[in-house]
């Protein structure tokens, strides 16, 4: 909900006022037996009168889970230190958790947050697989038909993303945080909804979680129900981090649920029917609910629409703030680095695939593959990309290397048998390139 500038300024000013809204702590008498006569208890010292909470036009988030990032709740004495954590790029590679038991890049970010000690965290979400934002699932289905895409690659990392979201929430739970959604399509929507406080950019969208349901399948109705229930249950678990109602999470992950809402003040009550008196978000039984910025704001799914970081911070009540750039640097440096290594790997793979002129090329091939394998071990997103693009896993590389070792040994043996004349002419015997006369000759 867009707030007039004057209210923002008022909110910011009011945020600096001292407030005291702590609930009184329960006294000992609250928990004592009613059998004990009150008169026998020493009178509790009178509590000093607490100043009443000043009236505030500023937005607050005291009714929600998690620490509120709003100025009115934080009451900072100086402009806040704001740390941006990017959740950007491709799901599974740029945005990843633990891959093959190796910690993801966010472990470094978490450590850096603790070092920097910011006042507020901004999780900036921007991921969309480059598909048409309005018709995400249609685009996915079309590509699936053409065998261009495997939905499992889009969403099979669901448990990995769940664990990453939970880790970010628990490890950084002491910091007030807000999600800023620039784009969230497909599985990335999970992250958009994993924080209770969320703003969306004017062009931002939250859509395409029906991809989760497409992970199901099975030979009969009960297996399909089992798989569908299991996958959607896991996805709904992530949305619970954001404190969203079950009727909303159901509609977001299940194509067969419709969604509307009633609004009471600033509270939204979601309904899985089309009877909501405020807004019907989704009336299709074929696709799950989708939100653009306008609908997200008007239904209260998002706290508001923010044009950029300055606007976001102003809406939170901070006319001034200090942005810590280290988190973005860690993330973007790593993304750039593994992508650079990926380009190198592609070139090496091209070289590897070149036809061999001679058995003497075998050690060179082995070296190339060893180098690719070593890089993949160093950069888990690279390993995953090699698997997705070329079907090349670490196990397969291990097997190919083993086979190359055997071929090298064979070649050396053949050379010895032929008097060490080198790998030039001959051909035939080895069956794998011009390796000189084979033992059977």
């Amino acid at each position, binding site marked *: 909900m867009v707030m007039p500038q004057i209210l923002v300024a008022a909110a910011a000013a009011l945020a600096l006022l001292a407030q005291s809204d702590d609930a009184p702590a329960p006294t000992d008498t609250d928990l004592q037996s009613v059998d004990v006569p009150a008169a026998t208890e020493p009178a509790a010292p009178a509590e000093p009168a607490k100043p009443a909470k000043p009236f505030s036009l500023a937005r607050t988030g005291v009714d929600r889970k998690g620490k509120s990032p709003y100025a009115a709740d934080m009451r900072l004495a100086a402009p806040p230190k704001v740390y941006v954590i990017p959740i950007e790029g491709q799901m599974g590679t740029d945005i990843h958790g633990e891959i093959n038991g190796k910690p993801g890049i966010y472990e470094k970010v978490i450590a850096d947050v603790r070092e920097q000690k910011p006042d507020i965290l901004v999780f900036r979400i921007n991921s969309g697989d480059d598909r048409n934002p309005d018709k995400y699932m249609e685009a996915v289905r079309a590509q699936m038909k053409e065998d261009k895409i495997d939905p499992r690659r889009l969403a099979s990392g669901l448990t990995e993303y769940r664990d990453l979201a939970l880790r970010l929430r628990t490890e950084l739970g002491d910091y007030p945080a807000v999600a800023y959604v620039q784009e969230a399509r497909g599985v990335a929507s999970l992250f958009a909804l994993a924080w209770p406080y969320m703003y969306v950019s004017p062009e931002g969208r939250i859509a395409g979680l029906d991809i989760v349901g497409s992970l199901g399948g099975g030979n009969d109705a009960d297996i399909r129900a089992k798989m569908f229930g299991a996958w959607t249950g896991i996805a709904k678990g992530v949305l*619970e981090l954001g404190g969203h109602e079950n009727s909303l999470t159901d509609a977001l992950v299940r194509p067969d649920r419709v969604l509307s809402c009633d609004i009471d003040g600033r509270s939204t009550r979601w309904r899985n029917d089309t009877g909501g008196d405020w807004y019907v978000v989704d009336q299709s039984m074929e696709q799950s609910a989708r939100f653009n910025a306008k609908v997200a704001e008007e239904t209260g799914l998002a706290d508001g629409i923010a044009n950029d970081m300055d606007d976001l911070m102003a809406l939170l009540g901070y006319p001034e703030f200090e942005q810590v750039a280290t988190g973005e640097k860690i993330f973007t440096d790593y993304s750039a680095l593994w992508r650079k290594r990926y380009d190198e790997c592609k070139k090496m793979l091209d070289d590897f695939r070149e036809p061999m002129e001679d058995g003497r090329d075998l050690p060179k091939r082995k070296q190339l593959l060893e180098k690719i394998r070593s890089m993949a071990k160093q950069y888990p997103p690279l390993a995953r990309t090699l698997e997705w693009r070329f079907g090349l896993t670490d196990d397969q590389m291990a097997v190919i290397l083993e086979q190359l070792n055997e071929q090298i040994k064979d070649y050396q043996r053949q050379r010895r048998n032929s008097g060490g004349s080198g790998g030039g002419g001959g051909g035939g015997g080895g069956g794998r390139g011009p390796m000189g006369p084979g033992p059977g000759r």
Partner: protein
Amino acid sequence: MTTRAALVISLALGLVPAAPALAQASGQQQVKLASGTWWGSVGDRVELTIKDQLSTRTLQGIVRKIDAQKGLVTVEVTVDGKTSQRPMFASSIVSMKTLGPEDAGAPASPKDKGAVTTIGGGSKGADPAAKSPRGVASGKTDKEGWPLDENGFRMSDKTPVFVLPWVGPVGQTARNEEMDAIAAEADKWGPGQIIVLDIDSPGGLVTEIFEISASLGEIRKRHRVVAWVREAISAAACTSMHCDEIYFRTVGSLGASTMIAGANTVYGPQLDAFKDEIGSVIEKNGRPRMVFDAMVLAKDVLTYTKDPVTGKVTWHDKVTGQPGEVVLSDEKDNLVFTASTALDSGFSKGTADTEAELGKLLGLDDWFEPVNPGEKQPYGRKLAANWKKLFEDCEKDIDLQINILQGAPKSDPIEQTSAEIRTIERILQWERRCKPCTDSKGIDRERLEKMLKDARKRLVDLRRAQQR
């Protein structure tokens, strides 16, 4: 495990005495409270909070009688200088905490009034006797250096928690063997210990659930077993429902226990046996059978309503249309709980994302996982990590060996046969070290041994031929 053996075990499970109170070998008993569980025995000095109509009161006294059948606990309390014995329904007791043995004297006022349950009175700030789970120190230590009490049980000034990460496919990395092992470790601290199964499993072999059921049935006679759910799908959901208490992580999901063989749902007598046997154990654990049924087949419906005044939950196996009814699973769905639906319906006791949060829900002041001297991590965590690593190493190496074996043959037949022998021997070694892994790969020991015998004979023949 064969189906027949599984049936025998599961039938035997039917003989296990039911909750709410289970007699303990040591004299300790389990009492299911309105919220949480209390372990203790007659003669314990306790502090308990009772919900009576609209009021809540806290009393201290000495337990004089525990009637498991009627769910009654009789406590001797002194009010206004008068001592009387008051029988109370366990279901009306909100929390109950052991302060020490009867003769330990009146303890200091406990600080944690919000605590639900404390095992063995390990309350920080209580008197020295209450700090120790077993009371009096014997002055002796065991071979690992832990101080022992007069009963020979390990002692600490904190209440220990034994965590077993139960991760991965059931029957593979998540097994009953590790449950038995951590229970044996907890036994060293005496009965009534808290064992937390930290569950993150997509399920697995249904047959395994019978072994798990048998193990947990035995362990729960001695200890308080808690499921802490990140993911408990299929057989892992059944496992969770075998525990005394279930807690969720915020992202937790639990359900979808359809029985599958190959790529199809199992119907008929096998399914009936599974539903009857596992369903009855779950029901005896205090969970409605219809909850389990709705996880097994899509057609089974589950809804609940809550009394607006008391908050009491009533489960329904059909949509009733009552006001406020929550439909958890309709006739097309398989029931899967999330943290919020589980908590709202009372299926879970609480939601915790960290050990500290779980500790509070369990009634603990501190989260204390004992680490044996010379070890870097607690027993259960090390146990699970070691088994998982062994399983993964086995899986990876067998794939590698099979791929190598199926790769291009060596030009020298003697070398080729020798390589085959080495590979088979290696796989057989894995079969001895990590059978669940080799089983999951469909490796048949007898067949491999025959292949090995043939390969060895072939090698001898080849060498003889070469010598000629």
